[in-house]
């Protein structure tokens, strides 16, 4: 039997403000526990929230980036539940009147297929603190939970999609697209490992062609694309197995463990909270004027989709390459700077997508920390273009620059990597190679054209060996073609 997967996402995005959404405490990551928890964040009696303008502005910017209706009047509500990382006993969030209404984003799969995913809405809310379940014990040796409220009150937008995705790949493409948008417009630092973006996935399956949605489960708090894909595949398999064995899916919240690639039920619908939402009496409705909206629209940088289209049109890049480069604002900026310096955008794109991305990955760093500046990469590409070095030698230059040996020109000079382009000198070497390998040269002359093609590489290799790879490949080819055909002594 054929099953169709249906996926919707809820995405928590930490807004990159300096202070919290309702208090003046810092939001910097990695501080000593509770050193950034103010009286408001601690929910001390008598304290009142004061809304951060920047959080509102950043939320509106997101709405504009996805062509959504902006809630010109939005209302904060209290979502009541009891958990120690939320000392107030409620989360201040939005429900009936969110700041961002319905919008749409376009996702692109690896095979180039494009598809729209509708955004149901996005709302502003505060993050909770962090619970640490290991390492703490009371005097009787009973396990305790440690609470760090530094994160409590960090501004978030929660983005809720429609159930428009039909596979784990589509869900990941959607998550990546949202990551690309929020980092490009500068509302989130996008650091997944620090929890700056966290994904909840709603998964259900139904028989192919069935108009009714199946019962869904929600897997919470996935913080990498890799885990997200694995968690969805795991849950889809579980649901299909269960249904094919005649079972039923229970609506529940599940927790995924990336280390073991397993998931377990956290709570079922029976135990679900009734959050008893009501408008927060401590906060008044937030009003956004048309002038505010237009001013924020004017601040938006070029969006990833537009940049991808421009990279294709302006630099002649393939749609796929343009998409990779434009998907990350820092990568896109780096590429454009390198392309300008190099004067050859296609070569610059190949290097950024190939060697630069590969080395960054291997080193586990981002492009902002790349030891090779865009200007240096551009200079190196120029040296390939003007024949100073071959593409092969360029790899050596690249590595040396990466390891801090200087600019490409300095490395080429210091290591003596300049390509041998002096025809007179090369000619002598080519003659020597043919003389040293007289038998092979004889065989070459006797061979037919097809065979000659195969044998030619041997001679090129010998010349490169003698010149330590510095010979200009085009010249070597031309010289060998000419010389191999001559009969010795003629």
């Amino acid at each position, binding site marked *: 039997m054929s099953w169709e997967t249906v996926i919707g996402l809820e995405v928590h995005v930490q807004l990159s403000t300096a202070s919290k959404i309702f208090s003046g405490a810092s939001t910097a990551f990695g501080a000593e526990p509770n050193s950034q928890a103010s009286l408001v964040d601690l929910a001390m009696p008598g304290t009142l929230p004061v809304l951060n*303008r920047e959080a509102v502005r950043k939320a509106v910017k997101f709405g504009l980036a996805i062509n959504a209706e902006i809630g010109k009047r939005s209302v904060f509500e209290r979502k009541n539940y009891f958990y120690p990382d939320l000392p107030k006993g409620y989360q201040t969030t939005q429900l009936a009147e969110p700041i961002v209404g319905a919008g749409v984003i376009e996702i692109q799969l690896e095979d180039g297929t494009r598809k729209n995913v509708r955004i149901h809405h996005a709302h502003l809310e505060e993050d909770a603190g962090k619970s640490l379940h290991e390492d703490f014990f009371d005097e009787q040796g009973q396990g305790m939970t440690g609470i760090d409220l530094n994160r409590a009150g960090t501004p978030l937008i929660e983005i809720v999609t429609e159930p428009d995705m039909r596979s784990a790949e589509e869900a990941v493409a959607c998550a990546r697209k949202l990551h690309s948008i929020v980092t490009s417009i500068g509302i989130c630092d996008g650091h997944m490992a620090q929890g700056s973006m966290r994904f909840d996935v709603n998964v259900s399956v139904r028989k192919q062609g069935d108009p009714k949605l199946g019962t869904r489960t929600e897997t919470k708090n996935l913080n990498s694309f890799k885990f997200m894909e694995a968690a969805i595949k795991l849950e889809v398999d579980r649901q299909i197995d269960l249904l094919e064995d005649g079972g039923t899916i229970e609506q529940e919240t599940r927790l995924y463990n990336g280390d073991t690639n397993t998931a377990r039920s956290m709570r079922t619908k029976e135990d679900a909270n009734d959050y008893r939402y009501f408008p927060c009496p401590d*906060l008044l409705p937030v009003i956004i004027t048309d002038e505010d909206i237009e001013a924020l629209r004017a601040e938006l940088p070029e969006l990833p989709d537009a940049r991808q289209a421009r990279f294709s049109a302006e630099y002649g890049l393939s749609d796929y390459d343009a998409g990779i480069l434009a998907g990350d604002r820092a990568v896109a900026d780096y590429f454009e700077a390198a392309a300008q310096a190099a004067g050859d955008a296609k070569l610059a794109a190949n290097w950024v997508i190939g060697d630069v991305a590969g080395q960054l990955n291997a080193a586990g760093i981002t492009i902002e920390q790349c030891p090779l500046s865009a200007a240096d990469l551009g200079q190196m590409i120029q040296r390939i273009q003007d024949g100073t070095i071959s593409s092969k030698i360029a790899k050596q230059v690249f590595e040396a620059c990466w390891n801090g040996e200087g600019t490409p020109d300095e490395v080429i000079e210091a290591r003596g990597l300049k390509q041998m382009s002096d025809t007179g000198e090369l000619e002598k070497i080519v003659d020597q190679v043919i003389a040293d390998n007289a038998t092979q040269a004889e065989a070459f002359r006797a061979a037919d054209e097809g065979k000659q093609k195969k044998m030619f590489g041997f001679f090129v290799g010998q010349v490169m060996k003698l010149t330590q790879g510095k010979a200009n490949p085009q010249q070597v080819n031309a010289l060998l073609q000419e010389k191999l055909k001559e009969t010795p002594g003629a």
Partner: protein
Amino acid sequence: MALDPQDLARVAHLARLHLDPADSDALAERLNRILGMIDHLQDADVGEIEPMAHPMDMVQTLRDDTVTDTDIRTTVQPLAPATEAGCYLVPRVIE
């Protein structure tokens, strides 16, 4: 709406309240009298009335995004019953 004993047990469970089954019927009856009053309110026609978010007809003011609150941990942590390594300690919340 009216609560039956099952509804009552469920609400009590969600509220983490211990309920003596012997009191269940009496409690359900009293709660249902309150719910009856709410039902009465539901009869009012509010179709033309915009839901009220706040009793004051005012607009939220916004503050600048600057860090104004500094570290107060050493002042406030002594108020907590148990702390360790800068964290507030509570009974373990997961098994």
